[in-house]
């Protein structure tokens, strides 16, 4: 799973978000390192919807502008959990090997 995809799913993990909300959440989570552009975001959302990992939650009109909210599907939640566990195991292995005296952190 690409990092942008992982971060988008993470942004939706604790509740639905609209497009701009996802962009700012992803920037927050990555501490400003990943700034999604609209084209990249909507290519990823199109793909995630086709794969059944996210779905449209609801639509709102704010200031005459359409906001479409997306949410994680159960399948999306499982995929994200599996990917997070994999990354966590890798990170733990790296830390353990870098600091053999300290043991697992």
């Amino acid at each position: 799973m690409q990092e942008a995809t992982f971060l988008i799913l993470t942004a939706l993990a604790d509740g639905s978000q609209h497009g701009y909300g996802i962009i700012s959440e992803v920037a927050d989570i990555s501490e400003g390192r990943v700034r999604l552009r609209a084209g990249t975001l909507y290519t990823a959302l199109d793909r995630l919807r086709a794969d059944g990992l996210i779905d449209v939650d609801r639509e709102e009109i704010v200031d005459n502008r359409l906001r479409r909210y997306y949410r994680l599907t159960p399948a999306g939640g499982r995929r994200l959990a599996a990917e997070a566990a994999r990354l966590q195991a890798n990170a733990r292995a790296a830390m353990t090997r870098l600091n053999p005296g300290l043991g697992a952190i």
Partner: protein
Amino acid sequence: MTDWSPGGDSFSISDRASSSARLERAYRRLVACYPRSFRRESTEEVIAVLLATAREGQRRPSVAEAADLLRGAARMRLGLSRCPRTVLHAVRLMYLGALAEVVVLVTLLLSIGSIRSSTRAAVIHAVGPHAAPAATRQLLASVASTVNVTIVIDIAFALFAIAAWLFFAWANGKGSALARVGAIIACAIYGALTIQGYAQGDAKYAPVAAIVASSAVLVIGIAAVILLLMKQSWPYYTRPATAR
């Protein structure tokens, strides 16, 4: 502006409104490049996001924004936004194959003169200095016409191959199961023809650049076929058409 008179302020507000309207129109022109189904559902949403992420006072889309939108539009139009990574790489390789085939065509066109003169020199060398001049001329003419026919066939083959690569790249990106089978068969035929050509001595006469390029094309084709046949690629070709 130091003069904050009411008149000046209202002018700057309307100025800002017109520049944001201009920015919105420019974004809409870029979003117009997306496929119709996406535009119908998502134009307003994307425009809202673009305007929300625009800098204060921005008057036109930045180069990076335009490139990002155009790339997204191209990926969606080619069906690549939803295909597995293996298929995406295979399709990219196929476009690369078309490009390599263009290189083959160009080197062929550039080396027509040297192919002609080297075959002519080979004929003169083969008949030797004591042959009758009339017979040598006749032989040279017939060899030259054979060479011309071969060159025309090679050019036609290269043009056909470019078209085939582009078609298979496009159709595989769309998830056509038929195109996948077709690409595999085409690659097998291409490989057989190339190897047969080498066996018949193409490698001796053809320019080195053409040999390198056609070998590269073959390697690209084999790599693309392997990617198309990988486990991750299968679901993309077996799901119902409505899901695409």
